[in-house]
């Protein structure tokens, strides 16, 4: 790795000022499990690393059944899944947090960092999207803006963050009654791999738990950005929970997948996987919504 400077600011304003001064020669460092690998391999260059973990707002994790979950951008995966209340309220997020890398990686890597790395295969991103995550971004001049997670990524490794901007936190609304979410991916190994395809789903059922009120579906590793499969999700709204409605949503999700063929999988395999995983994540989300 080339020589770099390292600072550990104590406030969002200081971090933003340092980012703004260095432009694209500065990078935020949360868990570092992507950034350090990219710098070492020369895929990214930086003159300045700014420690996200030293800023209190980026380290916060607060949950209440009414307010929902505010997850600081630098909170490592293990803190999310070790919190029993959060694990019970957001199992779909836990699915993703406990899939990312190894136990060692989960000790450092953050959900916010996974989003900012903006890999099409980022395991937590479909989970964030289907849970209705909204990103709080801070920028120069004390300005903040809020961005729905499905609008955050703009290309492989690229996102809406402008020079001088950083992700402060992601807010997840409180889970609704009779709702459930799931993330699953396909990898050829049991652990420690990058998704060939991944699907996140969330459902809200009515009081009888026999009909969909609404759903959200998001796909990983099948397009340049995580896909928000709106048509597939919308097809479920107001419909009964049945094999036929789930099958139709899976078919529509496959239409939204625009994968490439690469060393990890072919176009045909990935589209097939989207169908299988959409079915499975919907079924699991329904079980969770029913408390089964």
């Amino acid at each position: 790795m080339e020589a770099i400077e390292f600072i550990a600011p104590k406030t969002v304003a200081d971090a933003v000022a340092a980012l703004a001064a260095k432009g694209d020669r500065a990078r935020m460092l949360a868990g570092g499990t992507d950034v350090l690998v990219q710098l070492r391999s020369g895929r990214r260059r930086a003159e300045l690393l700014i420690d996200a973990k030293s800023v209190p707002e980026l380290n916060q994790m607060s949950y209440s059944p009414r307010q929902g979950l505010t997850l600081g951008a630098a909170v490592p995966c293990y803190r999310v899944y070790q919190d029993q209340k959060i694990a019970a309220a957001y199992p779909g997020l836990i699915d993703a947090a406990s899939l990312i890398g190894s136990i060692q990686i989960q000790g450092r890597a953050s959900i916010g960092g996974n989003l900012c790395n903006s890999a099409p295969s980022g395991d937590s991103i479909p989970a964030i999207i289907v849970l209705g995550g909204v990103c709080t971004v801070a920028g120069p001049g004390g300005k903040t803006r809020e961005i729905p997670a499905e609008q955050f990524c703009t290309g492989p490794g690229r996102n809406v963050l402008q020079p001088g901007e950083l992700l402060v936190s992601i807010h997840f609304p409180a889970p609704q009654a009779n709702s459930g979410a799931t993330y699953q991916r396909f990898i050829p190994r049991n652990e420690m791999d990058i998704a060939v395809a991944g699907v996140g789903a969330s459902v809200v059922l009515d009081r009888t738990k026999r009909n969909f009120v609404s759903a959200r579906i998001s796909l990983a590793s099948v397009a340049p950005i995580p896909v928000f499969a709106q048509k597939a999700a919308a097809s479920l709204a107001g419909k009964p929970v049945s094999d036929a409605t789930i099958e139709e949503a899976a078919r529509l999700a496959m239409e939204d997948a625009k994968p490439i063929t690469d060393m990890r999988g072919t176009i045909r395999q990935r589209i097939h996987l989207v169908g299988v995983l959409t079915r499975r994540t919907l079924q699991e989300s329904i079980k969770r919504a029913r408390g089964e």
Partner: protein
Amino acid sequence: MPGLVHVTTTINGNEVNFLCEPRQSLLECLRDVLGMTGTKEGCNDGNCGACTVMFDGRIVTSCLVLGVEAQGKEITTIEGLATPQGLHPMQQAFLEQAALQCGICTPGFIMASKALLDQEPDADEHRIRHWLAGNLCRCTGYDKIIRAVLQAEETMKASK
């Protein structure tokens, strides 16, 4: 050219001061700056787990932590496990089960396995294998390692 940074940290219970460049990983600092070569370098990109150390109560791959991030932290390395009375039960079990061949992955496996049993004294084989997915061994085929961890589990439970 950024200068050297002074880092104060705790390693194996002792306060340690060292100077490093911000680009240097904790792994480099342990091995090259402090001469603590028990922690091994394998892939240097977070895949193999050979450089696993305890870092504020969690196992991490020390190749993906910067030395400067160790400021004020509590670190345990493989050098911190044995006592004057003898090896840690995990180390002893790895020896008795011949759970190593070339030995490069061994300190990482021992640190990761000990961390698991410290928090889950009754972990079953499936849990152990899942926990150790981030540690790669190209020699043993893993079965001997799993046997060693299960043996250490019995020893550690018996000594409580």
